[in-house]
């Protein structure tokens, strides 16, 4: 793999560079996002060790195969072949040596896995909730944020995670950590990110239509800035419509567009004041009451042509100012 990688580096270097990978300052050594936690570095050393061993053993086996095949190629049609049926020492060696390597790698992996699985006692706890197609983060102080996970630098963070509907999986490639998120149960992850920066979060357990859009960003801030962020009210100095826009970008954007076009759900463009046709209920003009009801109890009135039971309820997740903010923001969205 190493030679392959050097070859790939040279050939692709120019190509990879211009695809503007913003957060990768230096070119990563083994194609992974640069290790941003101490455990990630340990992970990288084990991975590189195993990669080298694999490369050498592959070259030995494949090279041996090609060499032996070529050297013993058929020269005459009635060529005699040696009747070698087995060789005990050789067979013992090539069973025992792989076994030894497997055990070394297994034990080394166990050590790192143990550290990954056991969070330090004093960790700063954050609650993560996965839901069909966005991530919610709730802090002890009651502050919540959606799609954006802000953490202090150089402190142990412990995530207590659950899901509101189906299986999801919280994956931060830069920290080399991943853990499925199961409805009806809590699972945990922990990390300590020394460097300030922004890291990508993916959902890696298939969860339906927008599984590939269920992304989030981890923002590691210096401790002081983090305390400030924790205190300040995200909606300070914003009009109701601007609050609604922030809530929209955190949650509704996963399924609804600001134009009239259909995504997973109907578009919000020009919604306010327009008459709406429904599958079962009779049609009505879209007003504040209808929008509020569609957020708290979406299955009450389903727009014609849309399946029932896709939009989850947001009751208990939006505060009063966020709810009225959404309504105001939708009012501003013309066709």
């Amino acid at each position, binding site marked *: 793999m190493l030679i*392959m990688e050097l070859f*790939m580096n040279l050939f692709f270097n120019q*190509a990879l560079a211009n*695809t503007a990978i913003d957060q990768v300052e230096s070119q990563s050594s083994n*194609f*992974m996002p640069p290790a941003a936690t101490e455990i990630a570095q340990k*992970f990288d050393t084990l991975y590189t060790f*195993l990669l080298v061993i*694999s490369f050498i053993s*592959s070259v030995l*086996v*494949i090279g041996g*195969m090609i060499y*032996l*095949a*070529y050297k*013993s*190629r*058929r020269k005459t049609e009635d*060529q*005699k*072949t040696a*009747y*070698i*049926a*087995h*060789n005990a020492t050789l*067979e013992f060696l*090539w069973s025992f040596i*792989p076994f030894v390597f*497997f*055990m070394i*790698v*297994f034990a*080394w992996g*166990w050590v*790192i*896995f143990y550290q*990954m699985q056991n969070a330090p006692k004093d960790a700063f706890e954050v609650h993560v909730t996965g839901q069909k197609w966005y991530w919610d983060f709730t802090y002890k102080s009651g502050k919540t944020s959606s799609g954006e996970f802000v953490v202090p630098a150089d402190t142990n963070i412990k995530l207590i995670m659950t899901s509101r509907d*189906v*299986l999801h*999986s919280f994956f931060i*490639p*830069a920290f*080399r*950590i*991943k*853990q*499925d998120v199961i409805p009806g*149960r809590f699972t945990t992850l922990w990390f300590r990110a020394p460097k300030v920066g922004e890291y990508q979060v993916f959902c*890696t*357990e*298939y*969860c*339906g*239509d927008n*599984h*590939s*859009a269920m992304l989030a960003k981890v923002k590691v801030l210096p401790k002081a800035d983090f305390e400030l962020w924790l205190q300040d009210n995200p909606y300070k100095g914003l009009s109701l419509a601007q609050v609604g826009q922030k809530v929209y970008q955190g949650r509704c954007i996963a399924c609804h567009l600001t134009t009239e076009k259909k995504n997973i759900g109907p578009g919000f463009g020009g919604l306010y004041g327009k008459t709406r046709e429904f599958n079962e209920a009779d049609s009505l003009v879209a007003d504040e009451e209808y929008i509020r009801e569609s957020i708290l109890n979406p299955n009450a009135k389903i727009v014609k042509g849309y399946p029932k*039971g896709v939009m989850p309820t947001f009751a208990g997740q939006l505060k009063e100012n966020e709810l009225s903010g959404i309504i105001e923001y939708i009012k501003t969205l013309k066709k």
Partner: protein
Amino acid sequence: MYSTPGKNYLNEASGLWSWLTTKDHKRIGVMYMISVMIFFAIGGAFAMLIRTELFSSGKDIVDAAVYNQFMTFHGAIMVFMVIIPGIPAIFGNFFLPLQLGAKDVAFPRVNLMSWYCLIIGAAISFVSLIYNGADTGWTFYTPYSIGTDNGTLWLVLGAFVMGFSSILTGLNFVVTVHKLRAPGMTFFRMPLFVWSLYATAIIQIIATPVLGITLLLLAAERILGIGVFDPKLGGDPVLFQHFFWFYSHPAVYIMILPAMGVISELITTYSRKVIFGYKAIAFSSLGIAAVSFFVWGHHMFVSGQSSLAGIIFSFLTMLVGVPTAIKTFNWVATLYKGSVKFDSPMLYALGFIFLFTIGGVTGIILAVTALDVHFHDTYFVVAHFHYVMVGGTLMALMGAFFYWLPKMFGKLYYEAGARLSFVFIFLGFNVTFFPQFVLGAMGMPRRYYSYLPEYQLLNRVSTLGAYTIGIGFLIALAVILHSIFKGKPAGKNPWGAKTLEWEADEIPIHENFAVQPVVTGGPYEYR
């Protein structure tokens, strides 16, 4: 009915009805060949659609919901209809009795029933398209597979029925190997292809019923809401994963063991040399079959399984790696001091060893718990299992096609065309799946409809590779069809192989052997 001279299994009876009600294992093998080739074409088409959609990061040809159905049907068709029946049903059905010197499998009518189970199961699975398809992935993980309102129930019932096809084939092979061997053929004089089919049959009999009950429970979840796997009613979705993988990991050994059997046949025939370590290969087949039932948890390292269970599964997975490695080394050692002829089946066999070695070492990387935390459900895993499934089982399937076509239809094939198909498939394969190792390392998750822009270049390379594989398989199809209808007569033993099936006539008679063969020596007595 004893066949009259000049007749063989192909022309002794004609008309569709004689085929649809045949009790001849050779005809059932041919019927399986046709059905698996059709399903492979459909599954392959879905693969091409997936790769076309992934050409660029946003939307290429379809929306997310439709892409998820491509991904689900590609997985389900390839697993349940192509690669599990594949080698055992086509070449196992045709050649197991021949290689054992038997007249037929133990229960010919059960064998026919097994084919009907596959066809009926496939039909039921495609009914799901009427109820707007299925989008759960071939693994049907709950609670998503319970809630999604589309045709998933039909795909689940289809897979349930196809499970019986696998059980009945396995049952037939175990009984045939135990009870119908030719006089003089002790267990250690059986060809290694028969050994691998025997090990596969044991897995099919023990593992498939558990899939049966799991899919039945999932169907009951969707119809009655029984709540066994649904957290809303107290069930545990991780328990579904335990039950599902208890079948599905042994199932990947159902896929690879027959391929290993084919490779043992090809390597010995085309290097005209006795196999190196016959007993080692035979026992490692059984070893893999046994240990394969202890390792399923390595699919669940990050899925909420306890970390202690994860460690134990990781240790056992390392154990199952050892017999697999032993087999590969034995094949390479067989080449030493042989007289190797690079016909296309041999090229496919050497290609198998090349790709299976890469698949194997990446398997060990994934078996380490710490590394799997990063690589789980990313494209690294997609690349790994394609290296062992396409690089392994499909390369062996192609090698088996060209190796045994002369015995099935009595015609030779156009050698240069077959080699060309190998070149296209081998190169296309590497161009498609090697970049996916890199994508996986970079963190691109699996089953993603749209991906971040930085993954676009490697995905484009992969898509071009996929088209190359498609061309390769079309060339191979052309060569096979040309050989069946217009190939030159092949004679009894075109490759000079030593196993029993080459002692039967050019196109075997209904009874396989006019005179019951008596076995005196091992299967690979090349001098």
